[in-house]
């Protein structure tokens, strides 16, 4: 295989893996922003919570990796419900500045709480042997863990697509995103939809946080550090659009990876340049609607 083809495959593969990770972590933010119009900067806090719950389950209780991943996501999804009920709900009618103040405050509290419980250092886990090393996919060998991440991302996208396009709940959520008052007036319980969507988004973020430990690491400042990336995904994709979040996450993953591979000295800069360009051309994002 030629050098160029080899490089292209590597960039494509790693870029897609990174993109999937970004998608899983940020899709919930896109849903909650689009559906509830709530600027939830604490979204990364749920991803971080997922990562740390996973660590506790694996290191503290010896739960196997896959089971711990699922448990952590469910745990955080349930945990997020009281947050929605008792904190976020009060501010749905408030303006964006209040949203930002509340959610940034939550992020800072989460960082302090995690530092208090787990200490300031990054945590690590030992993934099972079948996720270590390389796997042969027939057309080349690839890092096993990233292949797994892509697989999980693919399954989630299928699940979400079916959930939103093929189920009644999905149809209701789409209806509420499009026009909340209309949805309410035909008898859709939007309040309950909010809870479901919020818990789903937080659970997905937690799953992403768990997956992220092996790829980008996990430490108490995670929620703030990666907030920028979540917001980029949402802004570039367009609020409330799952397809948009997916395309944006893949695009950003690919560009970031390609940039670092091809031009390491300036690689991290690409992602911002592309974001600015896209938003200049399409201020509402790739799939955003006015």
């Amino acid at each position: 295989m030629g050098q160029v083809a080899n490089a292209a495959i590597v960039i494509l593969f790693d870029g897609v893996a990174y993109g999937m990770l970004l998608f899983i972590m940020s899709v919930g933010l896109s849903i909650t922003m689009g559906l509830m119009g709530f600027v939830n900067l604490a979204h990364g806090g749920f991803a971080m919570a997922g990562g740390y719950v996973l660590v506790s389950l694996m290191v503290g209780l010896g739960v196997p990796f896959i089971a711990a991943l699922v448990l952590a996501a469910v745990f955080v999804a349930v945990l997020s419900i009281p947050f929605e009920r008792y904190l976020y709900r009060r501010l749905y009618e408030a303006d964006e500045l209040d949203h930002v103040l509340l959610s940034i405050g939550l992020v800072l509290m989460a960082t302090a709480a995690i530092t208090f419980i787990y200490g300031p250092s990054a945590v690590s886990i030992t993934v099972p042997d079948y996720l270590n090393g390389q796997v042969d996919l027939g057309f080349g060998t690839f890092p096993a863990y990233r292949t797994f991440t892509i697989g999980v991302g693919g399954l989630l996208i299928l699940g979400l697509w079916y959930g939103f396009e093929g189920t009644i709940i999905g149809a209701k959520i789409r209806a509420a995103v499009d026009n909340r008052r209309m949805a309410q007036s035909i008898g859709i319980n939007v309040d309950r939809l909010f809870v479901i969507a919020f818990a789903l988004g937080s659970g997905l973020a937690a799953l992403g946080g768990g997956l992220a430990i092996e790829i980008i690491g996990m430490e108490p400042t995670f929620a703030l550090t990666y907030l920028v990336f979540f917001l980029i995904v949402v802004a570039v994709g367009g609020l409330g659009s799952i397809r948009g979040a997916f395309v944006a996450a893949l695009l950003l993953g690919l560009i970031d990876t390609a940039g670092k591979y091809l031009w390491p000295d300036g690689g991290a800069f690409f992602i911002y340049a592309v974001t600015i360009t896209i938003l200049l051309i399409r201020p509402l994002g790739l799939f955003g609607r006015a």
Partner: protein
Amino acid sequence: MMEYRKLLLGTIVALGVAMGGADAAKIKIGVVLPYSGGAAQFGEQIDRGMNLFIKQHKAAFGRHEIELIKRDSKRPGGDIAKNAVQELITRQKVDMLTGFVFSPNAMASAPLITQGKVPMVIMNAGTAWIPSLSPYIVRVSFTMWHAGYPMGGYAMNKLGCKTAVIGYTNYPPGKDSRNAFATGFEKSGGKVLEAIPMGGPRQVPDFTPFFQRVKNAKPDCFYIFVPAGNHAVAVVKTYANLGMGATGIKLIGPGDITQDTKLQSMPKEAAGMITVHHYSADYKTPVNMAFVKAWKEAYGADTTPDFMGVAGYDGMAAIAHAITAQDGSISAAGTMKALAGWSYNSPRGKITIDPKTRDIIQDSNVHKVVFKDGRLMIEVIDTFPQVKDPCKANQIGKCK
């Protein structure tokens, strides 16, 4: 005659009283270390090293008492450390400063210690030219050149690497380590294909894109400098996950990437890595075995000292020497004079402060990571005895 003897006696008594004033001085030492944030693990290592020395060697301080005034430098940026140093000098009126994990923190503080005439005993920060920034800096840790420069020659001559790619974290010690290796390697006839900056020190990046690039470039050796700690674990994980060992690319670097405290979190593929460093807890010398035993007794069987812990320990030994040599009446000039040429039988072996450069002279050992007794450990396979910082010795770049 009688009068003369009386006078003499009086003088002796007066002298005695005057000296009695210097008796049992309280020496204030400002400690600047990261006690919070991602780098708190380093602060804890050094802190534990210092405390272990103080606990074990009460007599080393003579009649004098020390008071450690600790300040949190948090991150590598330099700003917070500089503020802490200013406060320690002007308000706390410390007699000496010590700690300093990150090079930028030591660099930012250098002008202040020159103005305030407060000696600084550096316990980590390894960028080679730091001691030239102030006449009051002395370093008990290492310079990036202690490892990088000999590694260059060793890679060529003993490991048979004709080509190498360098990957480094993009901040002063990373660039310094890059230069150190490149100089040593090219001097021996090796060819550096490329030097890749791999993100900054604050966040552990995803190393995969950088490593993929190296994998496709197919060098004989891949020399890496990243800050010790989680960066190092991520490096070995990425190396293992990309199956780079099987392609014949040898992973080499300074011992920062095979830090004792992180070795057990690394995958088994770490076995076979070759690094050059001045300390590992696995050294089988009596001094080190006693040191490691005392460490485990003090801090728990699952803890281990690493090169930072030993630097904290040795740094406190240096401070104790400076205090007793001046018998408690501390001056900047006196401290610097006491430390010039100071030599100590450290757990890492013999160390000496070079009176000319105020930097450390120590053995650089070639470490090989092996899997033995159910764990990864360090084996010393070669030694460069009593290395003086090669950057200053060869007058390279900023070391002139």
